[in-house]
């Protein structure tokens, strides 16, 4: 276990940014999002969740993957390579868990090599939470607010300094490169982390206790709820916008589109949302999900029933972004309780 005092962090960031693009939570006009590090950036490590999750580094909002040239009947195609290595500093445990969840889909046969390459080129330094937000419910999905097993390095904010623990090869390699900036954390560091982890987990469990729930029962509860009238009540206020899906760390649906400049162009994949009306609209006009009711139902069924039955993990990490940012407060925790998913 290592440690680094907070006033040395800019030095650490400079060093990290020399070998790879360093993304960390930066505040701009009051909005905290992951942005590349540059001298004097307004880094904010206190906000629990950035607005847009670090998913955008492994599944960018749009990424070109094919360059094409059409000339009369001739066609020539050329893949576009994935850009260079990057480091994510300050990803919260829920967001790191979310990346591990969508790994299961993208790395499953047939493997999505674009995603795989981006994952391999990335190193994730997670920062444990000290306090839960009111909208946090990661413990309901049996995740820990102060520990992320899937990160390459786990860090904890101890006030004056950060504790730093390498996990796995990438983490070890990175720790070795940053050796001169890191000191040994001493014997009682492990115990300090232990008590922090229990303290935060119990604080959030207490908060979620107010709801008093654990969501592990929601998959079975949803098995027979396809025609439940819960959906009729829920969908009516939905605006059909893409806020909940685009800021959700586990939402991964994408579209494939072409951009053309005369004879040349780029094919790219980009985020798409099941809440949009044209998500399943077919060319001949049929749409298996014609109204907002089917779309709102699909979003919850996919995260809490379909994804778990395919990959036996819920596609929700309890980060609470959708609860905070939905313009009409469609709240997944309310849905889980209403369908009887609380155990």
């Amino acid at each position: 276990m290592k440690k680094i005092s907070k006033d040395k962090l800019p030095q650490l960031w400079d060093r990290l940014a020399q070998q790879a693009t360093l993304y960390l939570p930066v505040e701009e006009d009051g909005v905290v999002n992951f942005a590349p590090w540059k001298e004097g950036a307004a880094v904010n490590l206190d906000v629990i969740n950035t607005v847009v999750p670090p998913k955008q580094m492994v599944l960018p909002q749009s990424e070109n993957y094919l360059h094409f040239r059409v000339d009369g009947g001739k066609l020539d195609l050329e893949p576009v390579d994935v850009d260079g290595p990057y480091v994510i500093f300050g990803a919260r445990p829920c967001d790191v868990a979310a990346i591990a969840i969508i790994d299961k889909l993208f790395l499953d046969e047939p493997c999505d090599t674009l995603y795989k390459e981006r994952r391999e080129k990335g190193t994730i330094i997670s920062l444990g939470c000290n306090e839960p937000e009111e909208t946090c419910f990661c413990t309901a999905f049996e995740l820990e607010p102060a520990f992320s097993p899937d990160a390459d390095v786990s860090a904890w904010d101890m006030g004056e300094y950060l504790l730093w623990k390498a996990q796995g090869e990438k983490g070890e390699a990175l720790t070795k490169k940053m050796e001169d900036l890191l000191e040994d954390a001493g014997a009682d560091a492990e115990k300090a982390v232990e008590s922090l982890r229990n303290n935060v987990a119990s604080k959030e469990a207490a908060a979620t206790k107010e709801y008093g729930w654990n969501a592990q029962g929601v998959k079975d509860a949803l098995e027979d709820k396809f025609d439940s009238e819960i959906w009729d009540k829920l969908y009516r206020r939905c605006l059909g916008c893409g806020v909940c899906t685009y800021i959700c760390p586990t939402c991964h649906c994408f579209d494939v589109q072409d951009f053309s400049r005369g004879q040349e162009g780029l094919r790219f994949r980009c985020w798409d949302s099941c809440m949009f009306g044209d998500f399943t609209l077919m060319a001949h006009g049929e749409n298996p999900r014609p109204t907002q009711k089917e779309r709102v139902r699909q979003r919850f069924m996919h995260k809490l029933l379909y994804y778990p039955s395919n990959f036996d993990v819920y596609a929700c990490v309890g980060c609470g972004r959708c609860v905070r940012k939905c313009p009409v407060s469609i709240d997944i925790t309310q849905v889980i309780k209403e369908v009887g998913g609380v155990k």
Partner: protein
Amino acid sequence: MSVNAEQQAFEPLIVVFGCNWCSYAGGDLAGTSRMTYPPNVRVIRVPCSSRVNPNFVLRAFQRGADGVVVAGCHPGDCHYVTGNYYARRRLSALRRFLEFIGVEPERFEVHWISGSEGAKFARVMEEVTEKIRALGPNRKMRDVR
């Protein structure tokens, strides 16, 4: 290449939406009267100045136009009687808004040019080209892909 030389080497691309009944005819007249105006101008014929949708103007800037001109009949002469009255309001609102977004107002101009003002057509195209040449290429709004 010194800045001045570079500026001289820069050939601005001006997209002109010319209304079929007046300004486009004015352009024709300039041609048939052997008046010259800069080749930087690409004229697109539209039925009326009020047919110019702000999408056209923005798409032109996206695809690399350095200046956009909408040319229509003088108010009162419109073949569709009220077309240019609507255009005057809408393009005025658009021009001020583009300025608010940061695009230099000189890059988007509206001129009333009648079918008989071949000379004015040539003069306006000359002036606009020189003004835009002085301003330099338009990086703003351009789609860099």
